[in-house]
């Protein structure tokens, strides 16, 4: 590989600065020499770049368009103060509405407060008090201040908007900087998976109830612990009654839905006590183990077939099995059973454990050969690595398709913008048609095809990301207990 030349030192500095601005790189004083800063990558944040479209979609679904715009601006800026974000969002909305009306920044202010309240955005650490004395400054943020929005002055913002200004300039809260809170979005993405599982298991009303209970748990528990705090039956009942969106079916059969959910084998809700009508928690490690198993089952099914799936599940449920037992209980003919067993073994889904039987020193010692599934170490990690690889391949392919056809795509993009601007200026249709014929129909259909391939690949990456989220969460929670 050719050696990388980073170019001029100032370019390096600029690159680092950009990455720090976007929360991808952090720095701290080196252990050996306090005057030198060491830079390191924040892996998770880099990975989450892929999830930005998902974030926007979720925020739009939960709140609305103005919150979505706020988030988009914040994602683009990386780190910004509240006033700046509001100002830029207002500008964006103005452009979108064709300068007809100037949106009121105080509505955006309310949206910003909502996002902070629900912890989707978080304050960045600021310079510590003694920072000026250190060569490499330390950054701190206080626990209770993480989500508090400082007082903003909306007046100046509104004035600048009317004047069509592009920059905010000086403002009162320029020292208070915000960024997107990735951990909160992770929780939200996990909740989506859990609610879908509940809806599949029982029905959509159960999904609704579960969504509500997840919210209650989130409000009363520490996000980093492997189990939530306990909610009592009465608390849940009150919440369901008070919630405006509760469907009548849920209100009528609330107790039954709760019971069906906590009696279900998927452990979506675990009952831990009877006080207050019943105490309920969510045990993340068990639930995510079940979800990871469902994921792995699906992978085995699609790659090897239903008979292999039966053998895999059988071994996983019974812990240790001999070859003969497996083929008898699974009722699969001997030859096929052996073939699938060895295929699973080859791809690390099954492991072998040998136990010697007999203690004779002379005769060759026979041994039991037992198959077992080593879920956290082997299977989940192998599947996770394979998922990373699949995701990477999809991205490589996408990049390749785009760069190969770059010339054509650029030409198409230029033509489109030209047509748009000319149409805006009122050019007659036949002249526009003449211009658009500068690209042949074949070229246009090729462009359309490239766009559809691109969308297909993006969708594929999103789906691979779902699997990665489940497997990563499983490994994280199983290592906690």
């Amino acid at each position: 590989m050719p050696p990388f030349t980073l170019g001029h030192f100032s370019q390096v500095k600029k690159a680092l600065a950009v990455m720090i601005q976007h929360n991808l790189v952090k720095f701290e004083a080196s252990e050996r020499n306090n005057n030198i800063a060491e830079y390191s990558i924040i892996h998770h944040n880099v990975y989450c770049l892929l999830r930005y479209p998902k974030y926007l979609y979720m925020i739009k679904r939960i709140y609305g368009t103005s919150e979505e715009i706020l988030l988009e601006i914040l994602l683009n800026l990386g780190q910004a103060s509240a006033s700046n974000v509001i100002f830029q969002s207002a500008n964006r909305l103005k452009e979108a509405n064709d300068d007809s009306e100037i949106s009121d920044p105080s509505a955006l202010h309310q949206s910003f407060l909502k996002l902070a309240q629900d912890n989707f955005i978080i304050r960045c650490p600021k310079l510590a008090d003694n920072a000026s004395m250190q060569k490499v400054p330390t950054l701190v943020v206080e626990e209770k201040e993480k989500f508090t929005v400082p007082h903003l002055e909306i007046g100046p913002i509104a004035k600048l908007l009317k004047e069509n200004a592009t920059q905010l300039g000086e403002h009162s809260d320029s020292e208070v900087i915000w960024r997107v809170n990735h951990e909160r979005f992770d929780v939200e993405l996990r909740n989506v998976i859990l609610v879908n599982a509940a809806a599949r298991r029982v029905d959509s009303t159960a999904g609704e109830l579960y969504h509500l209970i997840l919210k209650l748990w989130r409000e009363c528990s520490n996000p980093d612990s492997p189990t939530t705090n306990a909610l009592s039956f009465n608390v849940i009942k009150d919440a369901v009654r008070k919630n405006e969106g509760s469907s009548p079916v849920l209100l009528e059969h609330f107790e039954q839905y709760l019971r069906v959910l906590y009696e279900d084998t998927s452990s979506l809700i675990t009952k831990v006590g009877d006080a207050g009508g019943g105490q309920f928690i969510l045990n993340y490690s068990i639930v995510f183990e079940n979800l990871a198993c469902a994921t792995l089952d699906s992978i085995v099914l699609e790659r090897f077939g239903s008979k292999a799936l039966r053998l895999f599940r059988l071994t996983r449920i019974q812990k240790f099995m001999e070859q003969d037992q497996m083929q008898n209980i699974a009722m699969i003919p001997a030859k096929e059973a052996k073939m699938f067993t060895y295929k699973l073994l080859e791809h690390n889904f099954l492991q072998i454990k040998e136990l010697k039987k007999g203690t004779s020193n002379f005769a060759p010692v026979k041994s039991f050969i037992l198959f077992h599934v080593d879920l956290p170490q082997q299977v989940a990690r192998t599947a996770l690595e394979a998922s990373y690889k699949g995701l990477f391949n999809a991205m490589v392919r996408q990049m390749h398709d785009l760069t190969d056809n770059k010339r054509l795509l650029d030409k198409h993009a230029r033509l489109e913008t030209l047509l748009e601007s000319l149409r805006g200026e009122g050019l007659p249709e036949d002249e526009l048609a003449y211009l658009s014929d500068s690209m042949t129909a074949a070229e246009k259909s090729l462009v359309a095809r490239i766009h559809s391939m691109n969308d297909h690949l993006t969708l594929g990456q999103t789906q691979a990301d779902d699997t990665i989220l489940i497997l990563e969460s499983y490994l994280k929670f199983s290592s906690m207990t």
Partner: protein
Amino acid sequence: MAAPVVIKKEKVDDPRPSASADAGEGQTEAEIERRMIELMGEFPKGINDKILETDMPNVDKKIKVAILNRLLSQEKVNIFRAAVTKELFWCLKQQPTSKLKGVDSEEKIVMRIIEEAGNKGIWNRDIRTKSSLNQTTLNKILKALEGKKLIKSVSSVSAAKKKVYMLFNLQPDRSVTGGSWYSDNEFESELVDVLNQQCYRILQQKAEGAKQKPLEGPLIVRNASFLSSKEICQIISDLKIVKFNLTVEDIETILDTLVYDGKIEMSATTDGYSDGQVKTYRTVEKLLSSAGIVRIPCGVCPVIKMCGTVGAVQPKNCVYYDQWLD
């Protein structure tokens, strides 16, 4: 003058009329034998010396012994020793002895060994060890017995070449034939698959039926979608898919395979009617419709391990991607 006195002797009633017939001489051996067999018939649990004494006290012991020994050699009677008193008992042999006519003693030994093996059958080598006969003699005897239709050989399902011998009219045990799923020592996988799908369909229909009444609440819907293994067995038997009788255990083995497929779940409940636990089953939905990764070609690619940025297998020119993107 003294006249001779005649002392009148009264005729005394003899309580044992048979004994009045002479001490052994008048009674033929055949009659004694017949009497013994009669007695053995009256006491099916066996007669001992005491009973014989009471019945025919005048018969000489030697004669009794000779007759008994003859009966033994003719295999009409069996001799036992009582556990407590250590007395000898003789009783009639139940089986008709006619079939063993014309069979010599070696064959008798082999027959007895095979009989003892019951319906599991016994292997050639084991008969050899038990009877200590040599190979060629044994083979001759086995052939002769098979010819006379007294024994038969059944090939075991565990080792196709191994043959076990058992009595002709016995049904071979499940462990030899493999049970309901084996016919001619071959595992009938198609039958198992058909039954598998059928059971699943039955449970699905029950669940669908239960979902038709959502107004009663999800708990009712869930409980209504359970079926017990007995009920499923009944339904399948009524459908007459298989020619033989399906037992509840057979159906439970099929249902277990469905549990391991992840399509149904089992819960054991106690039923008010029967004692012990009743197994009930219902369909369950998987937690995920399918893992995201399998929706892209890489998730199911057979050559994923060889894929990289250089080499023959690359995402840039991957045929699976080409097909998928079209």
